[in-house]
């Protein structure tokens, strides 16, 4: 029908956002930017959940997206607290300088 969007386009968009998030996680060295790339990955996964909920006509996908959101909020709170503590102790946000577990 005219003007309607194929369902697979949403999945394609989700794949593109997921790959961009992985790229950010691999290539960026700032620990906060890497953390934001993880949030981008979680958003891409949420879009997949919502798309499949539309296709299956079930609300369960929305529930999973909701739980992902809640866990992301908890993860952001704890992760940013860890980043704060690391910055207070080490005075850096570069992930390459935080290698005290290496040797």
């Amino acid at each position, binding site marked *: *029908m005219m*003007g*309607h*969007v*194929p*369902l*697979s*386009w*949403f*999945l*394609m*968009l989700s*794949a*593109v*956002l*997921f*790959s*961009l*998030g*992985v*790229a950010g996680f*691999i*290539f960026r*060295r*700032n620990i*906060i*930017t890497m953390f*934001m790339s993880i*949030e*981008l990955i979680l*958003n891409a996964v*949420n*879009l997949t959940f*919502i798309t499949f*909920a*539309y*296709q299956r006509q*079930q*609300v369960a996908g*929305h*529930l999973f*997206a*909701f*739980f992902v*959101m*809640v*866990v*992301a*909020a*908890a*993860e*952001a*709170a*704890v992760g*940013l*607290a860890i*980043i*704060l*503590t690391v910055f207070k102790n080490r005075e850096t946000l*570069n992930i390459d300088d935080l290698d005290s577990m290496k040797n």
Partner: protein
Amino acid sequence: MELILFLVFAGIAVAAAINVVVQRHPISSAISLIAVMGSLAVLYLLLGAEFIAAAQVIVYAGAIMVLFIFVIMLLNAGGETKPGRSFIASLLGVPVLVALLALLAFFTARIYPRDTEVHFGGFRGGTAQAVGRALFTTYLLPFEITSILILIAIVGAVVLARKELE
């Protein structure tokens, strides 16, 4: 109408996501990430997920990103000074990522040919009433476990942030 909405907001989402990855300064990445989340909320509305769209704006773009920006400004973090990526990552990173994207797109196109079409109002089960009913009946146990998880996260964040006051 749906096609125009999808193309506009998917374009905004992809452009802002690219901006998240390529920006040097964390605050620019954070603002771009808010744009990604806002346009994704519109796409959720298109898919009939009213409650999740509202929660996306309130929880993600509201709470989580404010926390991020707060920490970035608190630490007064500048941009990255040196690229400093490892040799293997710079050599293999882009081809592996392109391969991952191509694989995902290939299987998506093979498994889902253009049969199911999204139109506004095609799924009406995403209202706050429907989500709440499923959340407090079928998914009550995961909901309670999530509340315990949030309690643990609050205690952990307080303990981690309290340490340097002493």
